[in-house]
């Protein structure tokens, strides 16, 4: 039997790794993958709480998160392709047209 808190700690570690990757990575695709990592951490805590309180709604919410993640992945990768086509780079430091 695993306590709920272990699952929450694991999900927190995953979320923290995602935030760290989002901040320290310079490749736009890797930044995008860090966002997926954060979403996965949240999903784990959803399922853990669903099991804790015997509510299936938590699992249904995981599906919605997955659908939103899929939609976000398609649009985000299309944006990455468009950025690469115009700027010829994947480094976010060189995509600074909006920077003062």
């Amino acid at each position, binding site marked *: 039997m695993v306590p709920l808190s272990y699952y929450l700690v694991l999900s927190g570690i995953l979320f923290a*790794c995602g935030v760290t990757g989002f901040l320290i990575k310079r490749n736009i695709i890797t930044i995008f993958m860090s966002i997926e990592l954060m979403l996965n951490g949240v999903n784990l805590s959803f399922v853990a709480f669903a099991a804790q309180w015997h509510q299936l709604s938590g699992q249904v919410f995981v599906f919605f998160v997955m659908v939103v993640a899929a939609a976000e992945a398609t649009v985000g990768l299309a944006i990455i392709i468009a950025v690469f086509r115009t700027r010829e780079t994947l480094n976010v430091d060189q995509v600074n047209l909006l920077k003062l």
Partner: protein
Amino acid sequence: MLHLILFSVFGLVCVAGAINLLVQSHPINSALSLIVVMGSLAVEYLLLGAEFVAAVQVIVYAGAIMVLFVFVIMLLNAGEEERTKGSRVSLLIGIPGMIIGSVLMAWVLITHSGTHAVEAGALPGAPGEIAQLLFHEFLLPFEVTSILVLIAIMGAVVLAARPEPLQPEGKS
């Protein structure tokens, strides 16, 4: 006991994959370690009794979404990432702050949460019951997500399409 061992093993694999994602400098290595994270998370879902979520995690996340990522990495021929130096102050303050915060949070969660252990297979996560919930109580959000996916498909096509060259006036 077996439950705890399985949880620890796949939790460690999961965290190792997440850290490897941060350490690797080539995007394809990061993508492969993200697949490892997602696969071991599917095992964690199985341990929680959510079989259907585990199957969808493998099919949709580790399958479809990661294939999209790998495909884009190959398409754009993404190479090694150039490192840029962050500010020194953020390193000096951020790393100790993060360690203190995470240790404190883990300690509070483990000692003071007062929750019972989650039993193996505690939840009737059968696909039938999930479908019952999804198509009755959550019918409206379900339909809204279908519209969202449709808009996402159209947006991806519009964004990724090569812009048409401007036709000179009077030629066409």
